[in-house]
């Protein structure tokens, strides 16, 4: 109780409340604009939050992270265009519902499913806290190294159909992170005698380039797209009543979201896929899926909104981000010298609980905002895409230039913008670059530290958690290799 009181005290400040409000409302608006998304917004806002208190900056970013998918459901349902990539599955059910005149019902279901999925996930996070606080101190350098290695492997393997490319990009990220002065032996790495490379390549510069500037280029080179959505009449609270009818699907989807969110590199897409498949297989009307099934819509929205809170678990407990957005948030922690990991749970548990509470509050704020402002958000959906591209490019400047007022940073970010633009044109994997950079740094640091106490390779896995992580890595890689072998064998047999 004392802990809860202390956490409430951390949040009970006008600047934290303002950050939550701006973040959550801004996140919904950004999510509702097709082609922008939370990654772009967080990348742009990241440097601006460095001057704020950690809890204020994190509240704003969490607001965007947690609320963008609510907003993304609006264009997915009304104009068959997902606001964020993870709302793509929502279009399968939302658009047919809109076509048969059930737009209000679809939106209401999406809002209520999103809210329930998110709250379910936060409750799980709070309940898991004591367990995490107990387990986290068991993670030493070698366990964190193995967890980061597992994260890289999972990120690469999660890109089915593009695994080789994802591996190549993860390697690129690992290499990028090594540029500059290395602090153990004080040697320069890949600086080519250029002094501006001595400080290394800043993660934020890369993030802004590959997410924000590249997206601005994508929007600017494409012809203008203008959508039109009909205004919604009537209340949007009825979805909660209907959700009670489908409580099994809601709970299962939320659970998939929590489980997949906790595993680095897996995230929303897998959670959605699993919950959607589960909902279809257990439905009394599986034939209605893809034709406007409320169960399908609930499965998609509850699962993807359950992920953000769960994705905070590896970040807070181990300091290991599972995807690009939490990797960006990690830099906010580092800037303020708050090091996420086992120590955070031991020494600043009230801060962790404050983050959980902030997540809870922002979901309430978003729901209230959406109940009253959906029709206003339709104007945002109708904004011309090239105009939005222009806004993103202008905002990207603030993000890069405010870091250290360097025109070189801007040029590097613009270079990564072109790189990201081409990758986006071909739908190639970008996230492994960012995770390669972040996890590469963690792996280098932790491997060095752990090797000081290791004499033989077996010493590395002589502790229970290290051994378990090692076993998981072996199982993951072996099962993937087995899957590849089976696919190869069946393709050869079918070719005969």
């Amino acid at each position, binding site marked *: 109780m004392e802990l809860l009181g202390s956490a409430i005290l951390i949040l009970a400040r006008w600047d934290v409340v303002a950050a939550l409000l701006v973040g959550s409302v801004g996140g919904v608006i950004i999510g509702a604009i097709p082609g922008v998304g939370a990654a772009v917004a967080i990348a742009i806002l990241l*440097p*601006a939050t460095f*001057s704020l208190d950690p809890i204020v900056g994190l509240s704003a970013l969490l607001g965007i992270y947690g609320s963008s998918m609510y907003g993304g459901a609006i264009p997915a349902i009304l104009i068959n265009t997902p606001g964020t990539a993870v709302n793509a599955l929502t279009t399968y059910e939302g658009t047919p519902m809109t076509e048969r005149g059930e737009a209000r019902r679809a939106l209401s279901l999406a809002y209520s499913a999103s809210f329930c999925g998110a709250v379910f996930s936060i409750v799980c996070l709070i309940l898991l806290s004591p367990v995490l606080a107990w387990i986290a101190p068991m993670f030493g350098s070698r366990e964190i190294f193995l967890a980061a290695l597992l994260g890289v492997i999972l990120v690469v393997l999660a890109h*089915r*159909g*593009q695994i*080789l*490319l994802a*591996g*190549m990009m*993860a*390697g*690129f*990220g*690992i*290499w*990028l*992170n*090594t540029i500059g002065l290395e602090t*153990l*032996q004080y*040697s*320069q*790495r*890949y600086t*080519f005698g250029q002094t501006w490379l001595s400080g290394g390549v800043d993660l934020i510069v890369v993030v802004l380039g590959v997410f924000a*500037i590249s997206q601005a*280029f994508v929007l*600017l*080179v494409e012809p203008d797209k203008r959508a039109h959505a009909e205004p919604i009449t009537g209340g949007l609270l009825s979805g909660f009543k209907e959700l009670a009818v489908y409580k099994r699907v809601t709970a299962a989807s939320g659970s998939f979201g929590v489980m997949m969110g906790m595993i680095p590199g897996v995230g929303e*897409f897998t959670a959605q896929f699993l919950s959607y498949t589960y909902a279809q297989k257990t439905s009394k009307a599986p034939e209605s899926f893809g034709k406007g099934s409320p169960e399908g819509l609930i499965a998609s929205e509850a699962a993807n909104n359950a992920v953000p809170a769960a994705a905070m678990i590896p970040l807070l407990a181990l300091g290991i981000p599972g995807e690009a957005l939490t990797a960006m948030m990690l830099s906010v922690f580092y800037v303020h010298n708050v090091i996420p990991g086992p120590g955070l749970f031991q020494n600043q548990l009230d801060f962790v609980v404050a983050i959980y509470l902030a997540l809870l509050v922002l979901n309430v704020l978003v729901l209230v905002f959406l109940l009253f402002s959906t029709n206003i958000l339709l104007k945002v959906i109708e904004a011309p895409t090239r*105009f939005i591209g*222009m*806004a993103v*490019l*202008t905002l*990207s*400047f*603030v993000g890069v*230039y*405010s870091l*250290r*007022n360097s*025109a070189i940073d*801007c*040029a590097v970010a*613009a270079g990564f*913008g*072109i790189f990201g*633009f*081409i990758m986006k*044109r*071909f739908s*190639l994997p970008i996230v492994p670059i960012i995770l390669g950079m972040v996890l*590469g740094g963690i*792996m*280098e640091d932790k*491997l*060095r530290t752990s*090797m000081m106490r290791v004499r033989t390779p077996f010493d590395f896995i002589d502790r229970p958690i290290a051994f378990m992580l090692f076993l998981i890595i072996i199982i993951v890689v072996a099962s993937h290799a087995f899957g590849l072998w089976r696919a190869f064998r069946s393709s050869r047999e079918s070719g005969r």
Partner: protein
Amino acid sequence: MTQHREESIHRPGVLIFITLFVLFAIFLLSQLAAETRLVPNAKLAEQPRFWPAIGVLSMVGFGLAQIALSWRVKTGWDPGEVAVWLRAFEYLAWFMAYVAVVPVMGYLAATVAFTTSLAFRQGYRDARSLGAAALLGLTIVLVFKTGLSVKIPGGAVYEYLPGPLRSFMIVNF
């Protein structure tokens, strides 16, 4: 999703992009000895060369494997795709021009000029759209520089303003 990903790597131009990337990786690999140090008597994990080698070898290894797999799929060559890439370079030039102008004109004037002229270039010629672009520039400056006090220095032209106004402009715009 998987099928979409597989299809996307067989689009015209992808192989060229991957080949260029792998050539860059091979260049990095050729520079590994020159650009990183090998410390005598240090453990492998403590070698400054270890992690750059892991990164570059992953780039080369996975990249070559991808090229070997993609080679048999005839994706062809689409000059239109390269034209789109080049169009993006125009906006890169706009962005860099904006970066160059801010320290001279100041953040407010440069941003309003950038958004308005870029909107004009985008084909928005009516007063309402251009006004909206100027308003967008103004809002961005007011939110970030005036409101959030992000670190963007005042323009060189502010030096010509009288004392109190100069300070006001440097702090807020």
